[in-house]
């Protein structure tokens, strides 16, 4: 064996720290998942493989309720946010120079990413309290509206990215080949945009599922979602049932994010 080539990219200790980082990232999650299969009611001992906590979690009426609520809110919020973000992305791309107000539009769309969730939560608590008194409406609409607004920048991101990598001459070619603007959109722009739109939806869906603080402030009594329910449960003594719920939730997010990853890798 000859001597190894001099590698310009290697820096001392960096590989080791990177490995430590990946362990740091995955050890807690792996532990959480492993102990969801523990027969024992405590994490201090491993008493053998069991699905009893999954059975308990799936039979738990409250868990069922909050899970369904989470999915309903995420479904609505991601759908609405994706539609709104698609329109906004169509309006803010495919021009050579920025139109008046475009910078302000960017700022507004990205605002939920900048302002701490707790501040938005407080603001919505106050604002929605006023509306609740004025209208008497107490339903899920508030949570859906809050989540929709929060999901818009996340849905907007991949859609805009897709539009920006899209060849503008394709739309010109369609127009040149006698397509009306509507036909060009229907037959050329939209089909090419679909992966971006789906990616935006997935990202929005995961974001909504992940939203805790805003939900905690906006929800009315009996409107817990899965994350706020878990947050409340963590105050008490925790059984591996929490691990089982977490593992199931994790799986759901993982599927959504993987779909997003695969879609965003599809070439424009």
């Amino acid at each position: 064996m000859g001597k190894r080539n001099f590698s310009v990219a290697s820096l001392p200790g960096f590989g080791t720290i990177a490995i430590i980082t990946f362990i740091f990232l995955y050890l807690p999650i792996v532990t959480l998942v492993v102990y969801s299969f523990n027969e024992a009611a405590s994490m201090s001992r491993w008493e053998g493989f069991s699905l009893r906590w999954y059975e308990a979690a799936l039979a738990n009426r409250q868990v069922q309720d909050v899970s369904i609520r989470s999915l309903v809110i995420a479904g609505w919020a991601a759908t609405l946010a994706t539609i709104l973000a698609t329109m906004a992305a169509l309006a803010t791309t495919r021009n050579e120079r920025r139109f008046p107000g475009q910078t302000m539009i960017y700022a507004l769309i990205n605002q939920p990413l900048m302002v701490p969730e707790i501040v938005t939560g407080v603001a919505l608590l106050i604002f929605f309290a006023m509306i609740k008194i004025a209208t008497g409406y107490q339903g899920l609409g508030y949570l859906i509206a809050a989540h929709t607004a929060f999901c818009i920048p996340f849905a907007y991101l991949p859609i805009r990215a897709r539009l920006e990598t899209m060849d503008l001459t394709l739309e010109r070619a369609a127009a040149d080949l006698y397509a009306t603007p509507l036909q060009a959109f229907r037959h050329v722009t939209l089909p090419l945009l679909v992966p971006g739109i789906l990616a935006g939806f997935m990202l929005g869906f995961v974001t909504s599922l992940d939203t805790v603080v805003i939900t905690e402030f906006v929800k009315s009594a009996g409107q817990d979602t899965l994350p706020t329910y878990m947050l409340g449960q963590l105050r008490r003594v925790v059984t591996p049932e929490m691990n089982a719920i977490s593992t199931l939730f994790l799986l759901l997010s993982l599927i959504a994010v993987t779909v997003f990853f695969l879609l965003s890798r599809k070439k424009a």
Partner: protein
Amino acid sequence: MSAVEMAPHGADTDKPKAPRGDIAWRWGLVAPALIVLLLAASGPLLIVLVYSFLTPGNFGGVIREFSTDGWFQVFFTRDIFDETVGPATAHLDIFRRSITLALYTTVFAAVLGFPTAWFIATRAPDVRPIWLFLVTIPFWTNLVIRTFAIQEVIRNEGLVNTILRSLGIISAPIQMLYTDFAIMLGMAYVFLPLMVLPLYASMEKLDFKLLEAGYDLYATRLKVLWHIVLPLVKPGFIAGSILVFIPAIGAYVTPRILGGGRNLMLGNLIELQFGQGRNWPLGSALALTLLVIVVAALMVYIRATSREEGRRHG
């Protein structure tokens, strides 16, 4: 193409008609998103400002009477008996803890994140997205679950203490949960991808020929790192630091779970005013103070990056 000395100012220059219709169409498309954002994200911030200048109601909410007490209480206390004014040490402690913990978190995330981003950026191009994806997976799983996972690792009967005890290194568990360290560790865990992603983005653009040039000109690895790599990835470094610092300073979930109700951060103090404290004006003023800190951090970021940009373009 030749430049025109005096452009004709007639209506037919550049056809203003078509662009104007185009702009109206664009505003129409973007309007629904803006309305939702204004109603359910940006607009209500103004109501918070109004509420911070009102009088607290007895059972939460406000009485519509102007008062600066909310803002006053952010920084000062007035003794109930002799009306003397003193600094609100409890609040100031929390401010200090929040800023310190957010800074520690940022540093910790950078120490882990920089080598990790470098590791990913130096893999073969086709496997880089997969490594990057591995970094982001935990990020897309729920915040409560991730914090719960950390709790399971560091609590007294948790993984770390169990292993250490079974190895005989310690006889009694090390108290890690419900400490500032726990909060810092949890936040670094939760926000680490926000450090890695922008760092990676700037490293990916790095021309590795520059490193070769450095070595060719007798630089050691550390000197190459210090004189070539660091200056070039600085924008990513600044972006990553800001992206970690901002959610860390406003954190609510992580300190609530890992701080155990004793080691409060700003987020928890704000929540308290809308819960048990029933002092909405103080809560509003605290929320806006947090917002001001975040905006200040953003300004530092924008100034730093625009200076970088300016340097690059001449």
